[in-house]
């Protein structure tokens, strides 16, 4: 890749406000670096707030503990949802967008002023919303379904966050434009930037839906306009609520590719296929917001089936392509380093001491095996009727958004802090354990929720004892949820302490490279690099793992049809 030295936005241009990273050799735009730092710090603060709320909720749903009174349960549930699903994720994604558009394209950020406007709007909105919730003026949960009504500042805060993020997305696209105009890169966008571009495209629609639904609700809360139709509200709100989670999927997959390259040197087997999978995301993944309206009476079965199937599962195909190509590229890279014993011998040589890598692997496994399989199954219209509004639904999305996205974002942070804040991580042994603790804890949370939900335990319910119909098994799984949450929140707090401690007290790197977390070692008899790129046998371990995945999918899917059939037995 060659770089123009005369263009105004190139980081290689004379006088460019940039530095050279001592670890990667890449040029880093100083303006982008400033906003990566700001957004990453804000993201971690909101993650901490959401995590504190999580443990309070889990210890309330654990019926034997039942910590919070009813009003505080719904208050904290609202707080948890918005901080975890919106604020933490969006701030971190803006940091990812700024990094991928500048450093990887050797371009400066389009506008510092726009970045400030975006950040201040998002921060003001998030703080405003949180204050209103904690004041007890918005006990409406994250969805704030009408006719539930919150304080006007609650809606205004969300509008500010949505519009602020949209402005950051504009800054990202404008940076892509000036980078292409000034030829800071040649050919196609690098794959990781391409994944971030997919995430940014996917983000436009949910953010527009957020504005469309929140503005009339805000004016209604002020008494200026009539109440929006509650069915319309649900449909447009989920255009924000669920579509925004698809942004996470694209960003998470881009991070998988990045970490696989940083830790193992893995290169995609076929970039065109990977890009094609991102295109399928762009075109079809946002349709699946219709999952939330599967039991709504206002929309037709045709609308539900077409949209919940992501246009006949084309976006699911995309996920399965990524879920194959990421581990397959890692396997090929490992075999090229000489770790070629048997089907799974390459797994033993992986850099398990690298917390970014272990976080990415756990993220992929939890997202695919738990989140993906449950998501597609629960999104089937007929099956959804036995799962809708039960704890199975949060059991699914805690595997996708927390076990998948949050864990991948945590993994990336183990590189972001040394490379952007230029501090070496403190307590590296604890950092190595953190992804395993978090991944293990969130798996227990997901299993506890899913199995309790299978027994009929509803989501968003403060107390299940009033019904008096749940036996000891349901209580056992709610206990499992509680124990899992204790482990996961402990790991989350550990992550925050590691990040804050490193930024404040970590050894300054200056001009020296970061201390390596550990990369895959090359053996003495390794074949030449690139020699196995087209050898099908070199990915036989991934083929075996994929077969296990598909078998699990089939078993889970048909077990759910059986469970549905049991609801209406034919005598």
């Amino acid at each position, binding site marked *: 890749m060659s770089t123009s030295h005369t263009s105004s936005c190139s980081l290689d241009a004379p006088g460019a406000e940039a530095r050279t990273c001592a670890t990667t050799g890449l040029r880093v735009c100083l303006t982008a670096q400033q906003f990566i730092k700001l957004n990453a710090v804000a993201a971690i603060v909101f993650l901490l707030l959401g995590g504190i709320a999580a443990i309070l909720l889990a210890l309330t749903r654990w019926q034997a503990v039942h910590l919070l009174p009813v009003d505080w349960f719904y208050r904290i549930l609202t707080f948890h949802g918005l901080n975890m699903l919106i604020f933490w994720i969006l701030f971190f994604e803006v940091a990812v967008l700024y990094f991928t558009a500048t450093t990887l394209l050797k371009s400066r950020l389009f506008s510092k002023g726009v970045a400030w406007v975006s950040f201040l709007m998002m921060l003001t909105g998030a703080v405003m919303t949180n204050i209103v919730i904690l004041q007890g003026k918005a006990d409406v949960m994250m969805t704030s379904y009408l006719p539930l009504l919150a304080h006007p500042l609650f809606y205004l805060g969300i509008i500010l966050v949505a519009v602020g993020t949209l402005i950051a997305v504009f800054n990202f696209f404008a940076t892509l434009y000036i980078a292409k105009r000034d030829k800071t890169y040649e050919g196609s966008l690098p794959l990781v930037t391409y994944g971030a571009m997919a995430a940014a495209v996917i983000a436009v629609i949910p953010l527009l839906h957020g504005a469309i639904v929140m503005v009339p609700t805000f004016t209604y809360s002020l008494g200026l306009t009539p109440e929006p139709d509650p069915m319309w509200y649900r449909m447009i709100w989920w255009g924000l609520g669920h579509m925004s989670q698809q942004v996470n999927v694209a960003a998470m997959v881009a991070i998988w590719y990045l970490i696989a390259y940083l830790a193992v040197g893995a290169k995609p087997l076929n970039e065109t296929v990977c890009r094609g999978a991102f295109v399928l995301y762009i075109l079809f993944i946002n*349709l699946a*917001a*219709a999952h939330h309206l599967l039991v709504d009476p206002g*929309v037709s079965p045709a609308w539900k089936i077409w*949209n919940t199937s992501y246009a006949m599962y084309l976006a699911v195909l995309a996920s399965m392509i990524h879920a194959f190509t990421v581990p397959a590229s890692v396997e090929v890279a490992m075999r090229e380093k000489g770790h070629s014993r048997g089907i799974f011998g390459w797994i033993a040589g992986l850099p398990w001491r690298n917390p970014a890598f272990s976080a990415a692997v756990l993220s992929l496994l939890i997202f695919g095996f738990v989140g993906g399989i449950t998501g597609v199954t629960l999104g089937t219209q007929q099956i959804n009727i036995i799962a809708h509004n039960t704890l199975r639904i949060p059991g699914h999305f805690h595997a996708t958004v927390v076990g998948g996205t949050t864990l991948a974002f945590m993994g990336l942070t183990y590189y972001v802090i040394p490379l952007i804040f230029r501090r070496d991580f403190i307590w590296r042994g604890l950092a190595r354990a953190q992804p395993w603790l978090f991944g293990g804890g969130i798996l227990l949370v997901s299993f506890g929720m899913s199995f309790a939900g299978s027994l009929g335990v509803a989501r968003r319910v403060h107390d299940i004892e009033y019904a008096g119909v749940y036996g000891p098994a349901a209580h056992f799984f709610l206990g499992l949820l509680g124990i899992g949450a204790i482990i996961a929140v402990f790991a989350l707090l550990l992550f925050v302490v590691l990040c804050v401690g490193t930024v404040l007290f970590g050894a300054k790197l200056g001009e020296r490279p970061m201390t390596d977390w550990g990369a895959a070692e090359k053996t003495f008899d390794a074949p030449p690099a690139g020699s196995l790129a087209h050898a099908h046998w070199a990915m036989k371990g991934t083929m075996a793992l994929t077969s296990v995945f598909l078998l699990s999918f089939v078993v889970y899917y048909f077990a759910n049809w059986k469970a549905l059939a049991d609801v209406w037995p034919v005598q």
Partner: protein
Amino acid sequence: MNPKTEEPKEHWLKRLMDNTWLLLILGVMIPLLSYTLWGWIELLMIPPAPLP
């Protein structure tokens, strides 16, 4: 011979995949039509419930 004619023409799929702005338009229009507009029309077509 014009040197421009010697350059191999890129496959239309590759050009599509490299066209950020076209992907942006498609990525906005497809869910807007399939999810939002179609769903909105269906909600508008619900007849009002007769009052008892």
